[in-house]
């Protein structure tokens, strides 16, 4: 959004910084890797997971099955690859819902101020008073378990987060002189918000987006673990961990790899978020 405004020298400087920033490098490498794995899984996985080979069940890791096989003889590596789609899709759409509703609310609150602002922010506080996971469990249990309801449940709790961040960002831009100039030239609040506020808060929203993305993946795995997320036979990392629990005595490795997948993905996104913050938010750069 801010690309057309930045001078070429500035984006080049940013690029140089990016290569010097360890968090950003590691984080984006992991994130790209996970995204690639999810994409590849559409065309190719080491084994076909709809093809059950019972003779192969509960095999420990080997050259043929690097992560071992599960209780149906399915290849765990292939399951994890396909499971990544579910995690990414749920968390990504949930972030989309949060941004799509939260950012307009936050910008509106900042633009209008007064009672509109007060009302919107108090409504935010009310959503915050519900422990998010509890409500997600409530929503998915009442309207039926499944990936779609998990998306909605997680998405709802992203709304106040983005509303808050957008409002705080917009509030700091409104008193600037160039906004005053735009108002003096007769531009309306909506136009100013689109032309001046949004490009200037895009960076902090992007950073928050990666954080919520990571939280969404954690929340999704928790919901599928208790059986309220994606339903079998669709593989999901949380569900795989649930399945592994009863077989912990005989096949402990089954509990390892889906967990690693979650940790690596969340870690990658968090590092990317930290790196972006260092790069894009000069105010916070001195902290490190």
């Amino acid at each position, binding site marked *: 959004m801010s690309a057309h405004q930045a001078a070429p020298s500035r984006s080049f400087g940013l690029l140089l910084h990016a290569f010097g920033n360890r968090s950003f490098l590691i984080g984006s490498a992991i994130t790209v890797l996970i995204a690639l794995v999810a994409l590849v899984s559409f065309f190719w996985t080491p084994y076909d997971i709809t093809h059950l080979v019972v003779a192969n069940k509960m095999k420990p890791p080997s050259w043929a099955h690097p992560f071992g096989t599960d209780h149906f003889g399915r290849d765990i590596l292939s399951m994890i690859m396909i499971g990544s789609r579910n995690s990414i899709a749920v968390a990504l759409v949930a972030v989309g819902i949060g941004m799509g509703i939260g950012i307009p609310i936050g910008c509106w609150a900042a633009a209008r101020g007064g009672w509109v602002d007060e009302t919107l922010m108090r409504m935010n506080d009310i959503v915050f008073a*519900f422990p998010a996971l509890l409500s997600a469990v*409530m929503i998915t249990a009442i309207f039926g378990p499944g990936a779609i309801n998990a998306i909605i449940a997680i998405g709802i709790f992203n709304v106040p987060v983005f509303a808050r961040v957008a409002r705080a960002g917009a509030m700091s831009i409104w008193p600037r002189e160039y906004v005053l100039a735009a108002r003096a030239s007769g531009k309306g609040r909506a136009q100013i918000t689109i032309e001046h506020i949004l490009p200037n808060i895009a960076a902090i929203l992007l950073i928050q987006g990666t954080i919520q993305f990571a939280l969404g993946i954690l929340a999704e795995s928790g919901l599928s*673990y208790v059986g309220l997320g994606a339903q079998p036979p669709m593989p999901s990392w*949380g569900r795989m961990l649930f399945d*592994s*629990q009863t077989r912990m005595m005989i096949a*402990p490795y089954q509990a390892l790899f889906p967990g690693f997948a*979650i940790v690596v993905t969340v870690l990658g996104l968090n590092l990317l978020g930290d790196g972006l913050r260092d790069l894009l938010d000069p105010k916070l750069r001195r902290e490190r």
Partner: protein
Amino acid sequence: MSAFLAKRLLIGLVTLIVASIVVFAVLEIVPGDPALLMLGMNATPEALEALRSQMGLDQSIPVRYFNWIGGMLMGDFGRSWTYSSPVLDLIIERGIVSLPLAILSLFLSTAIAIPVGIFAASRRGTIADSASMGAAQIGVAIPNFWFALLLVYLFAVWLRVLPAGGFPGWGAGIWPALKALIMPSLALALPQAAILARVTRSAMLEVLGEDYIRTARAKGMSRRTVLWRHALRNAMIPVLTILGLQFAFLLAGTIIIENVFYLPGLGRLVFQAITQRDLIVVEGVVMLLVASVVVVNLVVDILYAAVDPRLRVKA
């Protein structure tokens, strides 16, 4: 100060009222007839009608809402539809598992996180700092239920020193009961501790960069005194905020963690009640949890004002 308190109290009250309407409304639009669920498909229409009127389901929605709210204010949360005992009894019975669990994990996470955060901040830029913050970065990424599974494997399956799950009850003695809570509270505490350690570190760094810290050092105060007496107190505000927010996370976390360890706590109660459509239990427990979040945030707000007098005026 009293105006500040009054405003906070009012906001808390409004939050509770709106929350109660939302909870009631959401459960009102749930498909399915509770009476039918209780009696089964073969119930006669007369029996259904009798049960519906006994459960108060034949009254209008506003009447039921006010009956429910009024009852709760008088300590009557209604009767569970599946357990056929008062909801309040269930809440107390389960609460004596969940509350110690939540307190134990809050204690563990603060006890781990604050010293680590202060340590990292006071040795900023050293290997010790990077190592502890790297560990925190990984801790944030670990789902608590997976950590719980790893703990079960380590301590219950492999070392056999702790029970894998279940709860013997406080009647079995303090130690056996506490033993059953060690792993669950550790699992709940770890991700929270990781977040808290990072917040503590950055709050300390922020404060340590202030002029008055340099002045105190210049006056000849030791590093230790400055750190503990001046910096820590001022760094506590963001730490308190996060602690308050984490309380809500802990409460929600009990739903999953209690399922991992088969602990008969509030989280498991509400989870089972939802799947059994025992809506009166769900409503009661959810309202209780929301109320405790509101109260904790209120306490945090008041503590803010106690720590930082400037905030009393601002609010």
